[in-house]
């Protein structure tokens, strides 16, 4: 279940309360997020939509511990991350967050296998264990036969699938997708969305996705709209506070 009224229970995987984010540009204060509340249960697939500058990516950055809020609290799987130090946040991200970016952001000098293996280098897994994990993740995204390919040898859709494999290989608590289909053609975008849907339904992965694409948002179980720093419920559930 996804709620934006701050009424979610303690069992929610993600709990956001009174979240503010303010930037100072010149002498002017820009309120990107204002008093935002959000509860997301485990296994939910949530899409965030909104016009450019509405604060979607800022919200994702805060949720994934890449940025710190001006006020409010974020609790993920019982961890209050808002007051963690930089190093603690880095460790926390390694354990809990899988990132999928619009531009894939693979390391071009590493093979698909090595790119996917990167998050596992931070664990104590042996080389053979890491290999098993990578092979499993690559199989999930349907690229088991492309492990030794470099990013330049892959299509955009394939690169994004490798990025998904990298995001899931360490079995994080949730996936953070920032416009995952924004740079892809329709067919490749559908392939990516199919994988995300499968991860949500078959593997009960919690997925938070920012998108401009209504067709992508349709795949999510819930769609939230950000407008001028305020989170409002999706069209499908506009009538109530439950989405």
């Amino acid at each position: 279940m996804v709620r934006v009224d701050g009424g979610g229970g303690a069992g929610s995987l993600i709990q956001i309360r009174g979240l503010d984010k303010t930037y100072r540009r010149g002498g002017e204060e820009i309120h990107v997020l204002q008093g935002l509340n959000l509860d997301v249960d485990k296994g939910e697939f949530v899409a965030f939509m909104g016009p450019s500058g509405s604060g979607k990516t800022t919200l994702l950055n805060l949720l994934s511990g890449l940025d710190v809020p001006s006020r409010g609290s974020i609790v993920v799987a019982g961890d209050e991350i808002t007051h963690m130090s930089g190093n603690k946040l880095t460790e926390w991200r390694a354990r809990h967050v899988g990132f999928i970016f619009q531009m894939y952001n693979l390391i071009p000098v590493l093979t698909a296998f090595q790119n996917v293996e990167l998050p596992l280098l931070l664990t104590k897994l042996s080389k053979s264990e890491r290999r098993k994990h990578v092979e499993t993740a690559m199989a999930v995204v349907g690229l088991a036969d492309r492990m030794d390919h470099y990013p330049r040898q892959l299509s955009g859709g394939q690169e994004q699938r490798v990025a998904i494999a990298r995001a899931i290989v360490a079995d994080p608590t949730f996936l953070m997708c920032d416009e995952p289909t924004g740079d892809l053609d329709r067919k490749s975008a559908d392939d990516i969305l199919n994988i995300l849907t499968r991860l949500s339904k078959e593997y009960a992965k919690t997925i938070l996705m920012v998108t401009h694409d209504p067709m992508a948002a349709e795949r999510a179980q819930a769609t939230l709209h950000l407008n001028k720093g305020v989170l409002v419920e999706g069209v499908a559930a506009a009538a109530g506070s439950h989405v």
Partner: protein
Amino acid sequence: MKYMPLIIANLFRKKLRTALTIGSFAVALFLFGLLVVVRGAFSQGVDVAGADRLDVINKVSIIQPLPYAYRDQILRIPGVKAITFDEWFGGVYQDEKNFFPQFAVDPDNQRVVYPEFAIPEDQWKAFLQDREGAIVGSGTAKRFGWKIGDRIPIKGAIYPGNWEFNIRGIYQGAKDNDDLTQFWFQYKYLDERRQFGKGLIGWYIVKLNSPDDATHVQKAIDQMFANSPYETKTETEKALASDFAKQFGNIELLIVSVGAVVFFTLLLVTGNTMAIAVRERIGELAVLKAVGFSDRFVMFLVLGESLLIAAVGGLLGLGICKLFTLGGDPTHGFLPFFYLPYPAIVLGIVIAFAVGILAGILPATGAMRLRVVDALRRV
């Protein structure tokens, strides 16, 4: 070690740039090695000089002779253990380019005063029994392909005529940096045949009972021959070698200056390369941080790349320099101590690492401080 593929892969991102940077290190360290070798060649005489030996030369100049008759008088001074003498011959073997130092020596005492030159006993005996016999250093023997029994013609430059010698022995050094280029023959052979300068020698080498005797023996010798037609100047072997090296100017300052300029330039080149390497992959570094790699890891990643370049380039340059010096003195005699010692190789590696760290520290710190959110926005 599990991060090594990441460091190596990054170096192969721009192969030409990496190769050129490694090449810069290699050239700089080759030059460093060569400067050390040249410095050593000029000053090695000082380093290998015996602490218990004095050189007695003519007060006017080393090229002025001294009487053979001084020998017994010096030997009577308390503290003197042994004495020998040398005479510079200065002949030409086939061509003037084939230079090597030739000395007429005192065969009775040469080995007593210079125990560091190893000659098999049977060869030494054969040398003593042959008035035209000669002992040659293994370096010169190898250079001209001489072997024991060969008859060597040398054209006299100071003492005219064609002189012929029989190679009776080949000496080796006790240390890597001993001079293996010398050619010794019997003084009596020279003194009998030469038309002038009979009864004169070039200089004396005095072996002391103890290095502590140096000061008073030095003073005693020079006082003994003061106001004579052949006044003496007595110095420790080290001081004489040092004076000789100084004749060529301040080699040390020249070498330090050239070395400093080379390494400063190298620092700028490598620093610039690393700065560019970091700038063009800010997005990737941000992704590494996003997925959980720490700021410190990213810093060490960049420093690791810089150090790896320094290590590969440094070892390459020093290795080539070592190989180059193994070929021996390229001037064929002017720089007999043409040798790259292992401490210099270690120093070169330390300098290469220091330059690698200095060149990488600024870009590495920048990478460490990189804010993920800002960097991802730029991608």
